[in-house]
């Protein structure tokens, strides 16, 4: 007779073994490493919580301190490879196989370790893909998660930075795995229950809050006039004609400039209420002036942002908040929202090739994907219409009868023709391809595929790829906004004039924009302090962003 409850039985064994180093659910902090060695088995599939923002940092330290003779060959399934400990465990042999999504700060080291064979790579995913696999073929046997606080029963308060926690716990706990949480403190009564205690098996009082990176703070003081120009072009050349109300913005300065131009330039164009009303977006401090000026109706967040907590709690009409008043973020739901319920994604990138593939990979660095490919892709499963989606679909495919024609999500890449360190934005061959060859990967790590990209905005103009009818037109449209890069200088001038007549390429003057008008006085806030003042003092910028 087959046993049908081996997974649950194994979990009971782990709970019993771990109980030796715990008082009921409370792990003895002095014996964290002993505890982890007791509950883990060699070869376990383990999720350590951490993404581009929050980190279960104390548990990560504990994992790294284990004895590799006892616990080894773990298969790590995790959103972010961000802390040094995340890779230390591969160096020491505690872990062997890796499936992940994002590796920003560790991008150089992870590339070296992959190349050196220290890591057996499963795949690099988007957040949403990895979450999906937690429920299909990568269900964690043990999850190490992070919360703000717990009560005696193991109920968790994850606070504004809830992010991945509900998804990880759902897959692990209901998949008969073990859930271990690090918390900043144990309290009698939680502000709200984000994770019910019966899904949590052990709790570690770390004695301090988990680490959070302020990743989405862009200092307006660092915004250039070129970025302001590209932002003006995006508003006038894309947001206005398509009437984009539901959208996601990337993390860069170009899109932050758009946020700061809404209450000034956008107001002047009479666009309030007509664009940018509903967002799937982290709480960008640069959105504060637009929110305060009444532009924004609703924002759902993947995570929170350091210093924004009080502001978010004071604007519950705009943000999703709990009974305690503070923000509730949820990465899985917000990614789904970005994929299915937004009509536009616009973001910066590091390289664009001649077909329109783009990538943030540079030589010898693997930064992973995070969420951008989900935001920056056309959802083939989408069925509900909206004006921008239908208009983009009609531009791409004018011949199919409207009722059978798919709409298109607007997927916009925005940037300056020469980026940081004067590196050209446009390249003959993506560094991602070289990396794939070097590491013998099946797929080059492309952030946004050419067939998803609908527009490219640079200071030289907007290329509308939806209107291109063949590969030649597409290539010339890209060359036509590539400025003085090698790619840009390889343009066919007569063809470009034809493309311009068909509005496949639009120059600033075609949009009625004088580049000399693009100056910093147009920004609704010109410094972090301006943002703080715009929030009525509710936004508390982290020390590293203050110059006062």
């Amino acid at each position, binding site marked *: 007779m087959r046993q049908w409850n081996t997974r649950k039985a194994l979990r009971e064994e782990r709970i019993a073994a771990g109980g030796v180093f715990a008082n009921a659910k409370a792990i003895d902090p002095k014996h964290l490493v002993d505890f982890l060695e007791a509950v883990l088995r060699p070869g376990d599939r383990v999720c350590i919580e951490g993404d581009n923002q929050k980190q279960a940092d104390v548990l990560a330290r504990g994992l790294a301190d284990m004895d590799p003779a006892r616990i080894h060959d773990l298969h790590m399934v995790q959103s972010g490879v961000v802390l040094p400990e995340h890779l230390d465990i591969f160096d020491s042999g505690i872990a062997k196989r890796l499936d992940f999504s994002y590796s920003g700060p560790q991008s150089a080291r992870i590339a070296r370790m992959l190349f050196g064979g220290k890591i057996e790579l499963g795949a690099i995913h988007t957040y949403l893909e990895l979450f999906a696999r937690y429920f299909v073929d990568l269900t964690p046997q043990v999850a190490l998660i992070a919360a703000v606080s717990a009560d005696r029963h193991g109920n968790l308060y994850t606070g504004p930075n809830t992010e991945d926690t509900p998804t990880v716990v759902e897959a692990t706990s209901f998949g008969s795995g073990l859930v271990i949480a690090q918390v900043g403190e144990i309290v009698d009564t939680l502000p709200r229950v984000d994770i019910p205690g019966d899904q949590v098996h052990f709790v570690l009082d770390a004695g301090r809050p988990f680490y959070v990176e302020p990743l989405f703070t862009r200092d307006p003081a660092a915004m250039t006039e070129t970025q302001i120009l590209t932002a003006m072009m995006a508003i006038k050349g894309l947001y206005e004609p398509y009437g984009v109300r539901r959208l996601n913005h990337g993390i860069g300065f170009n899109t932050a400039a758009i946020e700061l131009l809404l209450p000034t330039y956008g107001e002047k164009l009479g666009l309030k209420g007509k664009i940018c009303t509903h967002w799937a977006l982290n709480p960008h401090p640069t959105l504060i002036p637009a929110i305060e000026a009444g532009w924004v109706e609703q924002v759902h967040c993947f995570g929170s942002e350091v210093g924004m907590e009080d502001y978010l709690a004071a604007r519950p009409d705009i943000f999703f908040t709990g009974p305690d008043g503070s923000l509730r973020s949820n990465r899985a739901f917000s990614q789904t929202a970005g994929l299915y319920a937004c009509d536009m994604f616009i973001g910066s990138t590091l390289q664009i090739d001649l077909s329109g593939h783009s990538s943030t990979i540079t030589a010898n660095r693997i930064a992973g994907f995070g969420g951008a490919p989900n935001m920056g892709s056309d959802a083939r499963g989408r069925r509900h219409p909206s004006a921008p989606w239908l208009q983009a679909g009609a531009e791409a495919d004018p011949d199919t009868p409207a009722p059978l024609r798919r709409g298109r999500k607007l997927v916009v890449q925005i940037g300056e023709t020469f980026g940081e360190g004067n590196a050209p934005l446009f390249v003959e061959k993506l560094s991602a391809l070289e990396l794939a060859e070097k590491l013998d990967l099946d797929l080059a790590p492309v952030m946004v595929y050419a067939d998803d990209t609908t527009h490219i905005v640079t200071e030289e103009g907007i290329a509308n790829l939806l209107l291109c009818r063949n590969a030649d037109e597409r290539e010339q449209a890209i060359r036509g906004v590539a400025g003085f890069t090698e790619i840009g200088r390889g343009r066919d001038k007569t063809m470009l004039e034809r493309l311009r007549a068909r509005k496949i390429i639009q120059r600033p003057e075609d949009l009625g924009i004088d580049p000399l008008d693009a100056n910093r006085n147009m920004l609704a806030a010109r410094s972090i302090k301006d943002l703080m003042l715009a929030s009525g003092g509710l936004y508390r910028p982290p*020390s590293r962003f203050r*110059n006062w």
Partner: protein
Amino acid sequence: MSNTRQSWYEAGARERIAALVDPASFAEFIGPERREISPHLSIFDLPTQFDDGIVVGCGAIGGTPVFVAAQEGRFMGGAVGEVHGAKLTGLLRAAKAVARDVVIAFDTGGVRLQEANAGEIAIAEIMRGVVEARMAGVRVVGLIGGRAGCYGGGGLIAGCCSTLIVSEQGRISVTGPEVIETNKGVEEFDSRDRSFVWRTMGGKHRTLIGGADVFVEDDTMAFRDATRAALARAPKLDGNTLAAEQARLERRITRFGEASDATDIWQLLGIDDPWAIPDMPATGFATLADTYRERADDAR
């Protein structure tokens, strides 16, 4: 929502001069068309600038003729090299010779490392120039509120001025945050803790301890108005001034020597909630500072 105030912090050297002086009154000395570039930078394969990062000339403020100098913080952090220094030295000597007041818009990290000896000598010459001009009855007004702050030799020159006008963004010190951290360790000085850096070297703190005299909003017009007022003050520098200032600095060490953070000093000055100081708007702060601050004796 409009945002039309011109930020001093964001402005370049020429924009600052244009905002300071009466329209069409400025005439530049040794302008970029003369191409007096640094003789040293090309050895290091570094870019040069035709004005070597400083604009000097004469103009009028409210009808009163003045000499004006403005450092360009965006060229090598406003650092002082041989030509840069010589232009300022010359201006100060001319000021003494023709008895005309000088306005210096500082924006500098100190001496240019690539021409260190020439730069150090220039700093000494400029300091002498300031003091000799002041002894002859000339006012030398320093304005500090640029991106590079006023560091190294710039901080020493600023200390010699008749009046220092500073905004919140302006930082004044000799040794910069990164250098202190490198030499003394991050426990002593965390240069990446920006609010700590500003608390220790920024315009508000310098105003409160008498390291600067006038606190203004980050606005070119506010700098201009404060400059006009400073040019109307009686010029004064003699042995009594220096003796009084020396006595004040000794008192300052006794009073604040044990304080480990600027907020401790602000508390000792009698400010109830020192942690509220950094977030205070300029006008509110200026009023509060007037009540509690230490005052320099035309020297610092």
